[in-house]
């Protein structure tokens, strides 16, 4: 078997101490192959975003085993390893610094990592996400939600990562813009051979983007399925099935039958 891109084993994440302790993620394990796109689905409080933040190195309170390209992740990460994992956040209004131009947002990571062809790379990055040079000196408030998310994607890709973590990347966007951004993400994964972990509450988005997925509830994985199993409705767990029914729209009879999980 080839070396998995991401290995997660027995990952647990908790916040607080003593009786305030909240176990946000409990013993979660999964692996993602190079070039694969993996989905984490669940409702709020399921711990799906918490896993993503821990994987990105934004949350130090975890235990278990995590590795990227076979390199074990510890409390401190060397800069080179950090570069490999980048993230696209949910809220395009909160993830770009409101007082920085697109130019600064894209060039700062390059300066930090000592790239010398900043100019060319910034232009190429804008091109790659379909924005072009006219957007370079705009501030985030001069961009639409979709354009902001494209800038966020360009920023995530500018350090040439291997893994891109997508935290509900389109849930704040209009459906027509969502389609454009999802298509862009699909293309970029193919062109650059990226590995994705996509977090979403939207089964449709996950079915479209991912080949495998884990359905989560209150910090635990209730079911792991392939995208085919999801789209053919072959889910085993009652909670997963209820999620599936709920995503199909309003139906009085189905709602009356909802269980409490």
């Amino acid at each position, binding site marked *: 078997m080839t070396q998995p891109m991401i290995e997660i084993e027995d990952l647990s994440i908790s916040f607080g101490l003593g009786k305030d302790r909240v176990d946000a993620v409990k013993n979660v394990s999964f692996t993602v192959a190079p070039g694969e796109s993996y989905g984490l689905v669940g409702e709020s409080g399921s711990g799906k975003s918490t896993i993503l*933040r821990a994987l*990105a*190195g*934004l949350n130090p309170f975890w235990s278990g085993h995590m590795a990227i390209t076979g390199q074990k992740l510890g409390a401190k990460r060397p*800069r080179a390893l*950090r*570069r490999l*994992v*980048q*993230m696209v*956040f*949910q*809220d395009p209004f*909160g*993830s*770009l*610094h*409101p*007082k920085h*131009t697109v*130019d600064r947002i894209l060039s*700062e*990571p390059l300066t*930090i*990592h000592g790239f010398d062809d900043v100019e060319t790379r910034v232009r190429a990055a804008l091109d790659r996400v379909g924005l072009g040079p*006219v*957007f370079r*000196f*705009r*501030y985030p408030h*001069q961009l*639409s939600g979709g354009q902001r998310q494209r800038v*966020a994607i360009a*920023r995530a890709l500018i*350090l040439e990562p291997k893994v891109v973590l997508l935290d509900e990347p389109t849930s704040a966007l209009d459906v027509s813009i969502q389609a454009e951004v999802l298509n862009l993400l699909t293309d970029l994964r193919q062109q650059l051979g990226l590995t994705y972990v996509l977090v979403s509450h939207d089964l449709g988005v996950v079915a479209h983007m991912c080949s495998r997925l884990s359905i989560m509830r209150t910090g635990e994985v209730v079911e792991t399925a392939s995208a085919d199993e999801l789209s053919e409705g072959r889910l085993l767990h009652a909670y997963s099935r209820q999620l599936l029914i709920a995503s199909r729209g309003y139906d009085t009879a189905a709602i009356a039958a909802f269980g409490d999980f």
Partner: protein
Amino acid sequence: MTDWAIAVTPPRWRRWLLAETPHSRLQARLSRTYLSWVTFARNPLAMLGLIIVGILVFLALFAPWIAPHNPIAGDLGNRLQPPGESHWLGTDQQGRDIWSRIIFGSRTTLLIIFMVAITAAPVGIAIGATAGYLGGKTEAILMRLTDAFLAFPKLVLALAFAAALGPGIENAVLAIALTSWPPYARIARAETLTVRSTDFVAAARLSGASDLRILIGHIMPMCMPSLIVRVSLDMAGVILIAAGLGFLGLGVAPPQPEWGAMVSEGRTQILEQWWVCTYPGVAIFVVSLGFNLIGDGLRDVLDPREG
């Protein structure tokens, strides 16, 4: 908001400033400043404040040419003249022209304000942002220090410092600056606490930015708007403390004109020769008001809470 607007064609310089697609860093920055200015200029009271402060700056810069008389040399034959043709605002007990002294006094006032702003605000933001961002022990130590300073009434603390350091404009500035930074530190810390958990700071950390880079490049710019507003609102207070120090003889050394000291000198004749202390008092009032109006206007521009 809606992305299509129906606008009348503005002149070329305005089109350049309002361009949807700036072509350089400079244009982007100028266009942002211009939009803020348009919002500010729509507020008539803020504009009034700006005019008042503008006049103050003008008087201070061109004092020797504007003042009709020497502000320091007295004419004892002309003591306590009421306002009239040759002395618009009258003369004081040493026969000095009050209008000229107010004009020269504006230099002192402006100098104190400027010095306090450039010393107290940076200290406050550095302490507050560092405390808020790093948290833990650093925060506890820095914020307890801030609290200790805040526990004293500002004027009393300034008086103590000024008395210990001796009179003089530098010492007055130092005394006021030492008592002004704690509120700025608190504001900066509060802003930092909200900014530190945002996604754009998380993104900066993912890009490998150091704590110092994040503090200076990402967090401090977000603290600036509320700080600028607060500093401009505080300017009125600084003027009053400076005047208070002057009134008590702890400000500028005597023959130099200073508004607070002028009020103090005139207080013995307040009933018979009212103009001696009234006019400097009016000057203090008007300039304080001017800074307050500017501060309110800036708050609307820089600190709109509706996101």
